[in-house]
């Protein structure tokens, strides 16, 4: 029982990052109807930018954070303008192939940035150590990461709910044509979505790089977050957050109960089995819109 509670709490902490990643997918999917597989590789780029800032250039942490966010934003603009804009209105296959290829393109850039090695931050930029609450043993990295993720998600939700720009984006979520007719610049909204999403993914990559080491293997986290997006429903922020936390818990429970039984990287495989199960049982997820199509 104690072990289970431990796993659940730790899972919640690591699930924060999955929730953040899932939100970064949903931001783009809701407004552009394109599923951005490439966000998995933006993680790598974000982590490397932070690493370059902190280790080779020796900048303070807050500046590194800002530069990472800016790097993510520039990447978002470039990707949207160069690769996604020409494909607006193409059949569904084209954006899927382009985002998949972008994933590999960014991965290649990641190899060049990191010279093919796994880099570490040496000393973590978030406080290390752990709190002991009863039998719980909470690593500070995870908790601070979770808090940062929550702040970002809450800020994003406030942006969507309270600001005028956010209102425009929500209109685009509903219908592109209606939004265009209302005088909203839909292309600009697409670009903003990519910028927001890439910033989020870069920050998540930075946090994950702090825990797992900065390397090409980071993009697996992004692929696992796809399971979370699907579990929550492709169109739902609430779903993405809930399912991200659920995937985190699932992973920790896997380490606790399933990993001893099976060989190899179960933590990576179980979310995909979970994804398949969702697809078989409830393909539109917890909060997703069930599409009814007519001729």
């Amino acid at each position: 029982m104690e072990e289970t509670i431990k796993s659940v709490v730790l899972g919640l902490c690591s699930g924060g990052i999955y929730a953040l990643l899932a939100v970064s997918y949903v931001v783009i999917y809701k407004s552009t109807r394109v599923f951005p597989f490439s966000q998995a590789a933006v993680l790598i780029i974000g982590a490397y930018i932070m690493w370059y800032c902190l280790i080779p250039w020796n900048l303070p942490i807050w500046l590194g954070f800002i530069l990472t966010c800016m790097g993510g934003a520039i990447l978002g603009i470039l990707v949207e303008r160069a690769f996604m804009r020409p494909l607006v209105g193409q059949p569904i296959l084209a954006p899927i192939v382009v985002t998949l290829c972008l994933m590999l393109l960014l991965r290649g850039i990641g190899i060049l940035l990191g010279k093919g090695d796994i880099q570490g931050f040496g000393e973590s930029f978030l406080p290390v150590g752990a709190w002991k609450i009863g039998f719980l043993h909470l690593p500070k990295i995870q908790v601070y990461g979770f808090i940062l993720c929550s702040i970002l998600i809450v800020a994003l939700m406030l942006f969507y709910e309270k600001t005028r720009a956010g209102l425009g984006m929500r209109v685009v979520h509903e219908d592109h044509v209606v939004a265009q007719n209302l005088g909203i610049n839909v292309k600009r909204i697409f670009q903003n979505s990519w910028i927001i999403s890439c910033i989020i993914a870069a920050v998540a990559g930075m946090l994950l790089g702090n825990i797992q080491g900065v390397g090409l293997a980071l993009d697996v986290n992004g692929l696992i977050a796809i399971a979370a997006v699907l579990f929550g429903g492709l169109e739902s922020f609430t779903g993405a957050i809930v399912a991200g936390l659920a995937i985190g818990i699932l992973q920790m429970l896997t380490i606790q109960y399933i990993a001893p039984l099976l060989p190899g990287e179960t933590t990576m495989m179980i979310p995909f089995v979970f994804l398949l199960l969702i697809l078989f049982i409830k393909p539109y997820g917890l909060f997703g819109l069930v599409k009814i199509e007519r001729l």
Partner: protein
Amino acid sequence: MSININRPCGTFDRNYFQAKEIYRTPLRKVLLAILIAGIYLLPFFTGDYGISILTVICAFSVGMLGLQIITGYCGQISIGHAAFMGIGMYTVAILQKHFGLSFWACLPMAGLVPMCIGMVFGIPALRMKGLYLAFATLAAHFVIVYMISNWRSVTNGTDGMWMKRPGPFLGIDFTADRNYYLLVLTVTILMIYLATNLARTKMGRAFVAVRDNDIAAEVMGINIAMTKIWAFGIGCFFAGISGALGGAYYEYVNVEWFGLDDSIWYLGFLVVGGFGSIFGAIAGATVWKVMDEFSTLVTPLAETFLGGAAFYASAAFSLIFYSLIIIVFLVFEPRGIAHRWEIVKRSYRLHPFPY
């Protein structure tokens, strides 16, 4: 309804017999015969290096044809195609190692096993389409690779397995590279024949109908779910055969040969080749493998420019270069090389007059 979406404008079918024809003019029949004879004679003029490239192109063409059936004909997206190719490879290796079967007995099994597994992973197609199916195949890719790399007692884990080439048949020794190439080429031509004719059967037309508008297809009485599942099954059959041919060429299989990037390259180079035509699939596979050779040729260059320990440069080069090529094709020529080829043929046909 058009099966060949790459046909130039102004080329009409005036009756059903014309629509079903493979050779639209007698000249094309002669040209095809000359082409096939030429490909058969090619290894006698190229060196060993040329034979190795040709063999790999042939093997991958079969796999690409499989993806053409899934994606080009039926419009379903598969991001796990390389994994099904891997199942084909491992089926042959496992049957040879544990059951001592010959390659000839393994070859049909190498198609049927991925076919069954592919149909299972195609079941989500019962309820959804497009993006969701892409997720299902993505998950299938990871689950399959996990199974292969961790079921050590059967698959030997990440160490890979040895494979044997087929034994002598009618006195031909297939351990020689040139003879093995001729075998691969024969199987490839057989598979091309199958794929060409599949497009002309009831099932092939059902695939195209589902691709073009699945709701309309359902109204016409096509069982969409079964059609999609069959498309997956047949596509994975081709992938498995391709894996068996390729694996037996190297006489070795390793799970690292079919990563997620290979699955994505399959889809991407199908775009480069062109959707919905046999020629497109073969062109895609050819471009892919020629690029592979090119990037191995470039590696020493990259090492001299970037310093001695730049082994990573070739990996980065191929990732960046390939994905840029695919994206450029998608943006500027989404119908691929097949469409360009049609344009070349059209300008030849209309020669004195510009179009």
